[in-house]
């Protein structure tokens, strides 16, 4: 939680958010067991034991992807951030959706710790939710994707096409955790392919 003074409340909230997302996404990747356990190391975040990626590439991927989103978070354009797991055929098997709602009318991050405790509760729930404890095959791949409310106006060449294909049917949704706080609310749910979905 290293933030500078004199930042606009939005920037501050966004940075806070991506920091949290980084931890949450790393936890998901860790819990899914795509990588060997040795690829992670234990860290402390908000007084919780979390895992952080040791491999520089992995760490950088998560970190840089989220950093890129900061300005969009500030504008409130990002609706969802997804961690998509897909198989060799690029068919998504599981999507972890972070539904984010920035409350831009709200000012700075409250210092009463309400946000912090909410986020902490979030991470605790995350690490104990059932779908996450199911380990996956190591052949899976994953990516971070962002869903926008509207197309970003700026240069689109920085964006990479998602590798995963779309599902034909609407997915089944399993909520994991919802957290409401100022200046942002985060909900995490998992999307699984509908039973009718051809895989």
């Amino acid at each position, binding site marked *: *939680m*290293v*933030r500078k*003074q004199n930042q606009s409340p939005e920037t*501050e909230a966004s940075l806070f958010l991506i920091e949290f997302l980084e931890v949450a996404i790393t936890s998901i990747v860790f819990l899914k067991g795509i990588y060997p356990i040795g690829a992670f190391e234990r860290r*402390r975040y*908000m*007084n919780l034991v979390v895992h952080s990626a040791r491999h520089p590439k992995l760490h950088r991927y998560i970190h840089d992807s989220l950093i890129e989103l900061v300005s969009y978070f500030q504008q409130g354009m990002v609706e969802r951030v997804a961690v998509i797991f897909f198989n060799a055929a690029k068919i998504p098997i599981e999507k972890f*959706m972070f*539904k984010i*709602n920035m409350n831009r*009318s*709200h*000012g*700075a*991050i*409250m*210092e*009463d*710790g*309400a946000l*912090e*405790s*909410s986020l*902490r509760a979030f991470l605790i729930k995350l690490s104990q939710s059932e779908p996450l404890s199911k380990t996956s095959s190591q052949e899976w791949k994953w990516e971070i994707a962002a869903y926008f409310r509207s197309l970003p106006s700026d240069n689109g060449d920085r964006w990479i096409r998602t590798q995963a294909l779309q599902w034909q049917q*609407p*997915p*089944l*949704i*399993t*909520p*994991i*955790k*919802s957290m*409401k*706080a*100022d200046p942002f*609310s985060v*909900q995490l*749910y998992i*999307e*699984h392919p*509908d039973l009718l979905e051809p895989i």
Partner: protein
Amino acid sequence: MSSDSSHSAKSASNSKRSFNSTNSNQSGANSFSKNKKERVGDSGQKTLGMAWGSGSRSSSRSSFRSSPFTDFGSYMEVKNRKLHEQFDAEASISSHGGSGSKKPVFHGVSIYVDGYTVPSSQELRGYMLKHGGRFENYFSRQRVTHIICSNLPNSKVKNLRSFSCGLPVVKPTWVLDCVVADKLLNWAPYQLDQLASETNNQPKLSAILGLRSNLVACDPANAPLTSDINISEVGDSAEDIKQPNQEYEAFEHDICDEAKDKEPSCSNKCENEVEETNERRRCSDIQSITQTLSMISGSSNKGHSTSFDPNFVETYFKNSRLHFIGTWRNRYRKRFPSSSRPSSSSSASSTCHRNTIIHIDMDCFFVSVVIRNRPGLWDKPVVVCHSDNPRGTSEISSANYPARDHGVRAGLFVRDAKACCPHLVIVPYDFEAYEEVADQFYSILHKHCNKVQAMSCDEAILDITDLDVDDPQVLASLIRKEIFDTTRCTASVGISNNILMARLATKSAKPNGQCYLPPEKVNDFLKQLPIKALPGIGRALEEKLKGRHVKTCGELRMISKESLQKDFGPKTSDMLWNHCRGIDNRLVGIIQESKSVGAEVNWGVRFKDSKDSQVFLLSLCKEVSLRLHGCGARGRTFTLKLKKRKTDEEPVKYMGCGDCDNLCHSLTVPMATDDVDVLKRITKQLFSQFHIDVKEIRGVGLHVTKLESADSVKHGNEKSSLRSWLASASPSKEKENKDHKLVNILHIVDTKNQIGGSHHHQPRSNADVGNILSNQEANHSSDVPPLSDLDSDVLEKLPPEIFSEINDIYSGKLSNFMSKHKLDSNGVGTSSILPEYVEGVAAESEPGIISENTAASSSQYIDMMPSASSHIDPSIIQELPEEIKNGITNLFPAHSAPQIRSHDHLVDQVKPTDHSSSHQLWVGNSPQWVEKFKSSDSQILRFFSDMYSGVGSTHRLSSVLLKSFSANEACLGGKTTECDDTVRCLCQLLKDYVDLELESDLEEIHTCFRLLQRLSGRSKFLLQVYNTTLPHLQTAMRENYGGSLRV
């Protein structure tokens, strides 16, 4: 057998004396038997077989008390005690009491006779009785000093160590000859013939390491003498030794090189100082003491190697001379603290004022001290050596002048030395005597002169310039005489105008002489002096100069300074140029602080596996840590040196290091330390960096540099106690420690806050809510609880010091916080944030959003509010403006609303009226449906309404459902014929709830429907509700989330 030889010879003699005196005392009998008990218990006597097992302290004590012998061990104990008493009684009669001044011949000797001997064991016992010795009927490692036997079975010869435990095994004629000579003779010539030819019986290091744990466990006084187990203990690091005369670093470095090369030291005709020094360095390879023994059982060492007792010459000693020299410095400093300070008054310029320097050096100190009380040996060739092993593979560490005349020098193997000089007498070290003599030596020097610079334990420099002395030679001879009278050791003196020349003069004065070198004679003296005699010129430099045909100082003077600089670099050339002209500007009295502390073992290092090496490293760390403590220093840089053998062949010198590569790794830590555990960790880390096969290691050294004084470090620590840990991102361990400290305070704060709340930080008092300051830092430093977590009441009560410390941690914000709180507590504060919130609501214009927002916000505050209602003073609310009151009522959890209402009807009347009807059921603090259902005819609806009031802190539907789960089933399941209206009502309630919450709290909706699903298993009515609402939910899900909820 005597009772009081139980510890060692020295304590034996002491206890004997005390024993006699107590006997003459009135209360003698009592205290005597008490003593005895203790002694017997302490001795942990090793006798035979089973007795050994019961020999441990506790068991022997307890068994002793229960008088009928419980086992063999206790029987043996009592028997031994009785035998001792008998022996003492007889001894007091038979010993010739007339020789009070002279010690009896066998004083301190305790023999054990093994097998058949001529003369018989009884006769030997008689001799012992008569001449003050001891006689043990049963072998005990602790009491026996000599084993007497004439013949040994083959098995015992093969396994001598287990039989003798390292004690000398001597022929009975030794006893007879001693009696005839009326003095204790060296037992070496009387060693059993069978053993003299014994070749390999020396254990590997691992054997000793195995022993080590036992050693640690037992009382140091009982630690067995492992005398001929030789682990070298190389004492201090070279640097450490260098300290006294650190100007001569280069010179000594060369010496060290020489020692490594195993070359005999330079065969200078004159016994010059180089050789003296050389000797001293030499022993770095020769030390014979197990490191463990020297550090673990320091007390036992003293006990066993009793200084005054010549009987113990045979006992292999267990300390290192280098270690002695190293520790002597500390001792000296403590004794003469003033001298370690550089004297400020020393006149710097040697030109304007003629200095007179006396360099005084004891003659072959290590030998002469040992033999000072044995004038018979003074003109005999004597050497000091750690071990008089029959194989003769130990190296001589110091030889006296008669021995040097035979060509015996330090560093020679005893075997070779004996070849040069068959009558060579070998004596062991006697560290207590060294200490004593060194102290006497310095006392005398300090008496005569106030400017004394200690070079070593036996060598010092005096500056007598300021003394009003007519003839320095007279003073010198006076000092020398006094030294001899006091210590019975001789000293040589060199007098000149600077340190260098004084030292050179001493060399020519040796032995036992003095040499005055007035400045006018210096030139002539130097002219013919071989360059090698100059300090700082070792073999390498000598060879180099030889290449330039320079052999004497005179020849060296011919070379220009520039030319020297080109060849040798600035420092060495300066040194050469000055020294060959007899120029030396050093001042007397300046002692350098230690720059490094360390320990190095280059002898006997043979590791079997990594476990061995780890054990060894740990003990090395312990030793280094002890030395650091001894110097009162802590270090930051740690260097681990390893010697890796170059060839597979075992070196000539037994267990020596041979030809080795020197490897080293070092590590610097931010905090100076002398902690064993830290050292261990660092050492392990360093060791792992080498990636070396432990079998290849021949030497290990650990050195600590960048020393800081322990006192200052400690002081600094205290100063920065609380702050330092907060400021630094310290390792977790440290963090935990510190957490305890502050968090204790903060915990008080916290617990006050937690009014029945099970959450971490949830429950807040009003004041806290009001103080949601825009204080960003508090959140950052994750160690410190946010400012708002602190209870101001507690903070107020804190002592001012602690408050200011905490205030510092919060970088001053705390006092702001406090002053604010004071304002708040005046009564205004309860609502201070609420206006802000209401403003937020007002900004939103669309009614639908408002209601949603309200719900969202209230649920968001829910976590903080529960305890709040009780804090609210209704009278204050009454005073508030209308819209603020609205905000408050909306904000407060439903369950607390009635409370407010009961106090204030105004609030009750204020109901939101401007919301669209679609979500009306959920509007309000106590949602409308609660009232509506309450007044309903339907039992179920009333039930839900009751449930709602019953749930604690939240007004969530999931909690209501969860509660109804555990509630009486009858209400739910009862009538199947509920009217459609009831179903419709409930469905509407749920649908509204879904519309309200789905967007923002999927989890809550999910929980509700899961619960409903489970409840529907019990109640058809609820099943109906569930089935009706589910499609609505899924539609809403698709709209909001683009998928269907898995229920």
